Structure formats: C-alpha cells, structure tokens
C-alpha cells in the first residue's frame, strides 16, 4: 500500500506542478487563439464582401432595373422579389409553424409517439434545401400545375422554414414559467384559455423572432428557388396585383446562382453589389431579431 501513498504526493512536487500549469496556460491560450481565429475568419469574410460590394451600391443601383441584358443597371426587381418571397413565406409558415409548436410543447406529451414526432421534424430540419426544391418542383410546380411561380416558391420556402419555426415556438412555450401556468390553472382556466391568454402572449416575442430568423435564412437560400420560382431576365416591367403570385419572380440568390451559370455576363462590380445586398438583407433581419430577443429575455428575467 506504500505505492498508493506515493501517488498521492507526486502532484505536490513543484517541478510537476509548474509543468502542469504551463501546459494549462498553453492549452487555454491555444483554445483562445483557435476561437478567435474562427470568429475572425468569418468576420473577415463579411468584411471582405462589404469592402468589395460597397463601391457598387448606390441609390440608383438599389432602385432601378437591370439594363443591357443584365450587364448594367440596378437590381431593384431582385430585391423586390426577395422581399415578396420572404413575406409570402412568413404568411404561410406562421399558422402552421406556431400551431405545430404548440402541439409539440403542450399536447404531444412525453410519450414514445412524441419522441417519434420530434425525430421526424428534426429530420426535416436537417434536410438539404435542394431536396425541398425537388419536392416543390414535383408537387407544386408540376403536379398542382402552379408552374414556376412566386406561389410555388413561397410554399417551398415555407416548408423549408417550417421545422425551425416549430422548434423555436416549442422552446418559447416551454420557457414560459411553470408558475404562470399554475396561477392560470388556479384561476380555473381551461387548457385552451390558458394557452390563448397566458402561454401564447408570454411566448410571443420568442416565437416572432424565431420566425423572422428562420425566414431570413430562407431568403438567402438559392436551391429551392432555383427549381420552383426563379427567373433570370428581369426588366422594369413587373407584374402587379394578384397576378404576381402566378408569375416567376427574380430574386437575389437566384440572380447570383443563375449569373454564375451564365458565366461572366454580369460584371464583377454588380456581382459584389448583389452579394452585399443579399448578405445585408439577411444579416440585418437576423440582427434585428437577435437584438429584440436579447432585450425581451432581459425584460422577462423571471
């Protein structure tokens, strides 16, 4: 048993302790360096695109249509198309996603079945965006005869954002404190009254920011739009009224993807300008949502 006593005392030897501390310092330093390297890389990319794109951006670039076979002019139709797509997606995903989230949080329970439902939605969340494009093409565009149109694109993007909206809604509802619900129950509220008057109002900020975050991400995805809603040659002559829904729509990610396919028709400056506009479009939406969320969380520090 002497050897046991020895091992206990070895760490106390100063040489070893110093070495351990050096290793510790080095490890912490390395982690810090790696973390900053990865954050810096990605921030660097954002900075690079801002630097490259900024010279191209002007008021007329953002508000005029392209000219001369896309080789000059602005990108107004694409911006308008992206906004339309995002709004349509928002409207479609809102009821589905929120009701789905309520179901998971409050009605599905904790059974094996609910675990299966969770797994199913998680699989949907991890499905590549191009698969949604394929599905949209097969079902909305061809089977339902919508053609390549804004409506088909919005439906496809709504499916794409659905799992994220369901999960954020579920989390927002679950984070409403138990005491609120108990208070409601004590007042004799029925389950749906509790839902409608206590849970949903308190979860609302979380739900809304979640929806905005996920539709923002969808607005930057090219593959679903590529197969269901995009058009390359956009002019100033844009469809109006309800007709909009049946027409294909020019939009920012599609413009970049198709511009690459056409190979060098769009001058580099306009490409960078479009990249920056798309990135800012998505980042600003997200930044707004993140700020709102942080503020709400601070206010709701139950």
């Amino acid at each position, binding site marked *: 048993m002497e050897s046991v006593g020895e091992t206990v005392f070895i*760490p106390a030897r100063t040489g070893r302790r110093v070495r351990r*501390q050096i*290793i*510790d310092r080095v*490890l*912490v330093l390395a*982690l*810090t360096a790696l*973390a900053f390297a*990865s*954050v810096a*890389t*990605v*921030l660097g*990319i*954002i900075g690079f*695109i801002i630097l490259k794109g900024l010279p191209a951006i002007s008021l007329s670039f953002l508000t005029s249509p392209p000219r001369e076979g896309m080789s000059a002019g602005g990108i107004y139709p694409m911006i308008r198309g992206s906004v339309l797509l995002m709004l349509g997606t928002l409207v479609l995903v809102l*009821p*589905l996603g929120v009701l*789905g989230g*309520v*179901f998971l949080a*409050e009605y599905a329970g904790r059974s094996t079945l609910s675990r299966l*439902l969770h*797994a199913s*939605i998680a*699989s949907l969340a991890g*499905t*590549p*965006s*191009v698969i*949604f*494009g*394929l*599905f949209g*093409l*097969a079902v909305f565009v061809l*089977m339902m005869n919508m053609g390549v149109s804004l409506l088909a694109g919005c439906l496809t993007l709504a*499916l794409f954002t*659905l799992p994220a909206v369901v999960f954020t809604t579920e989390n927002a509802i679950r984070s409403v404190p138990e005491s609120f619900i108990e208070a409601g129950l004590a007042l004799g509220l029925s389950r*749906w009254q509790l839902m409608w008057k206590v849970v949903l109002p308190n979860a609302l900020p979380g739900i809304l920011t979640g929806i905005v975050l996920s539709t*923002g991400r969808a607005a*930057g995805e*090219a*593959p679903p739009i*590529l197969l269901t809603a995009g058009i390359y040659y956009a002019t100033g002559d844009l469809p109006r009224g309800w007709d909009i829904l049946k027409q294909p729509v020019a939009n920012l*990610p599609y413009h*970049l*993807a198709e511009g*690459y*396919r056409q190979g060098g028709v769009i001058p*580099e400056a306009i*490409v960078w300008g479009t*990249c920056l506009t*798309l*990135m800012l479009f*998505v*980042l600003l939406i*997200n930044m707004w949502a993140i700020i709102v969320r*942080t503020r709400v969380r601070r206010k709701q520090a139950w």
Partner: protein
Amino acid sequence: MRWLGRLFEAGVYVTGITVSLVVLVMFYYVAREARYAFGDTFAWGFRLALLPADSSDDMSPGSAPYTTLVTVNAEGSDGLDEHEEIVPAPSVSSVEGEMMLTTAATLVSDITDIRADRLYRDEWRALKTTQQGDQFLVLGYATPRYQQKTMVLAWEPDSGFDPTLSPYRLVLRLVRAPHGVDVQPFDIDLKRQPSGRITLPAWVARTDAERSNGYVFEIQATPHRSAFWATLRGIFSTEWAPTLMYPRYGVLPLLIATTLMSVLAMLFATPLAVATALYLSEIAQPRLREWLKPALELIASVPSVVLGYFGLMFVAPSLQNWLGQALGMESGRNLLTTSVMLAVLAIPIVASVTEDVLKTVPESLRESAMALGLTRGEMLWKVLLPAARSGIMAAVLIGAARVYGETMIVWILSGGTASMPSLSSLQDVSRVLVGSTRGVPDTIAIEMGNVAFESVHYGHLFLLGVFLFAATVLVNLTALYIGRKQVWRV
C-alpha cells in the same frame, strides 16, 4: 367561446400531426418522381467494317473509312422513313484508296426487301421500348480492285456505349452468304465479345446492282434482362454523363465526391469549432460571451451563395498562388477549395450546437474536478470533453449533414467534372484533392435547369435526391440518438 376552444385544439392536433408527417410526404413524392429513371428505353449502337485481310490489328472499325454505324438512340429518327438525311453508301466505282471493302446499311429488316438502290452508310433509329428490341441488316462486299482471297469483318461498340450495361441480348450473326461462297455461319454474343474480328472469304460486287447480293449480317437486340435491373446496374456504375448519346447515370462518382468533401470539411471544421465552443462556454468572460454567441449565430446565416462567391474570388486564387505549384493545381476551383469553404460554413453551426451541449454538462462535474486539484486545462480535457463527448459527436454530425447537402458552394467551387476518384496511391490522392470534382446536390440543381420534365434524366436527378435525402436523414437521426445519451446520467 367553448366552440372556439374546440376549434383551436382541433387545429393544433391536425397541424401538429401534419407537420410531423411532412418529412414522410416529401420522401414519398421525391421517391415517386424517381420512377421516371426506370424508363424502359435504352440506346445502343455498333460499328461494323470490312477490312483487308492484311490490315494491322490496330485498325479498328472506328478508324476505317467505309464503316457502318447502326444505332438506336434518342437523336435517331426512324431511318426507314427519313433517309434523306442519311449518306448513301458509296457506289462500286467511287470507292478509292487502299480500302476497297465497304459495308452498307439496308434500312430494312426483311432480307427479301434489300434493294441495291437503297443502301446507306449509317442507320440511326429512334428509341423503342426494351420489350420490342430492334434489328439491323448490314450488307458487306468488296470492290473489283480488291485482290486478296479473304477479308475481315470487324465490329466494336459505338464510342460511349457499354454493351454490358444494356438490358438486351445483343447478337451479331451472318444471315446470308453470297451465292457460291462456302462459309461457316456464325452467331456472336456481343456482350461477351463486344469487339472483335472474323475472317471471311472475299466476295466482290462487280456492279452497283450486284451489291445487294453480298454478305448480309444482322445485329439483333432482343429483350434479355428486365429494364429495371439494367437501370439499377447503370445507377451503380462509375460514370455520370447524362447528356451523351448513350447516357450514363452512374451515381457513384458523385456520391463519393460529396462524401469526400464533407469528410474533409469536417476534419478542418471540427477542431476549430470545438475550440470556439470551449472558449465561449468555459473561458470567455460573460460580457464577451454575450456578444460572441449572437455574432456566431449571425455568421451562420451568411447565405451560402455569398460564401461560394467569396471562395471563387478570394480563396480559389489564393490557394492557387500558395499551393498551385506544389500540388500541381490546374485551377483554384477544386475539391480542396470546396472543402475549405464548406468548413467555413460548418464552423458556426458546430460551434453553436457544441456550446449548447457544454452548457448542459452539470456544474457539479466542473466543481468536483477543481476540488480534486485539476488545473482548468485538465478539467476541460479530462472531465468536460469526455462528459460531453456524445453531444459533441452529435454536433459534428449535424454540421456534416448540413455540409453534405450544401449546394451553392459546391456548385461554384467544385469545378464541375464528374469523375471516379481513385485513391490507390499518395499521388492519386493529391490529384483528387486538387482536381475538379462534382457532388450530388449541385448536380441536381445545375442539371434540373436544362432537363425535359419527366424524362429518364429527370428521374435520375430525383433518384440522386432520394440518396441525398436518405443519407442526411440517417445522419440526423444518428445525431439525435447519440446526442440523447448523456454520460453523467449513468
């Protein structure tokens, strides 16, 4: 008010169940469209030529001047009707040079209908179903200047056509020998012997009218294997070339390339992402963390098209400059560049999920480690990482699934050549790394733009979608499963 409540609850149940079924519905429809891949038409074609008996072995039907191509493919019109477009067979007097032997397509399938004034160089026919099969008659003769006693019939598949993948039994036979020529009839299985040569006694056509009395060969395709199995074999072959005259739909090169670039990207991304997460959750000051975590989320939302363009304009030329010489890079658009940008895409995702995982490790584990006198580094390395191991693995898998299905970065940066990567030697590996490649998701997105809806090619693109879908669902479910196991709960 009560009916409103009922309505609300009914809505919740209906939507909840619908939403949960979406993934199954999607899988069903994507798989259903893949049925078009199993169309039952297959293109095929052979070249036949008569060669002088003393011709060298490297003379092939492809290089002989008077060769006959018989083919059934998507571009073929039915040769029996539209022969205006087809070149007439040379007349006996016009055959020049050293090749004094010719073959000619007859455009008929009945041997009694052969007419000397209707002979053509080649014969192209439209696709028919595998159940019908097809059959060509080809005439062969020598011209009067040919002096040798024998001549050689040579055959080979048309370039790009692989007889072993075809669902037909393909046979070359001698149906009629010219009058007065004594020759053993032959019947060759073209699948076993796709190309070859056979020596025949020479027969000379003295006049143009006599040409129709020469040797008559037949190439016949009869249904053999089911079209389904032939398609399946084609899918698991090693070449993807859907726009060729004899299209190849082998998905293996695409699947392997996508897997390769995802694995490589995760090798780059995992250490950086885990380090970032460890720093955020264990080392950073709370104030800094409050800023960095949202920044990370923000970064994860940079559209991948933009990342692709950044890779194209900045990373590709830089890598080309640094490593171009050393690795023999021909273009900055290659597998390595693609993996690097995919890693950039994956880092924020993996880091964010890993950070969430680390947050769930109970404080008691950290405290006990510290109480035992471990340094912070030892605590991270020996306690925290092992405790969070399964969660971190789940995070890496989630990132891998995202990278595996990423379309735009691969589209813009991969270079676009679908070829079977060979990894047998170190040199090959480096060639694959710096070589142009092409993955599954980008192929779907690129080619769906110029494909006829509900064609065989369209079906194969959906089939690629099925593979991609299945792979990502599998990876995600694995992540979900192992992420649920938490070591400290044992």
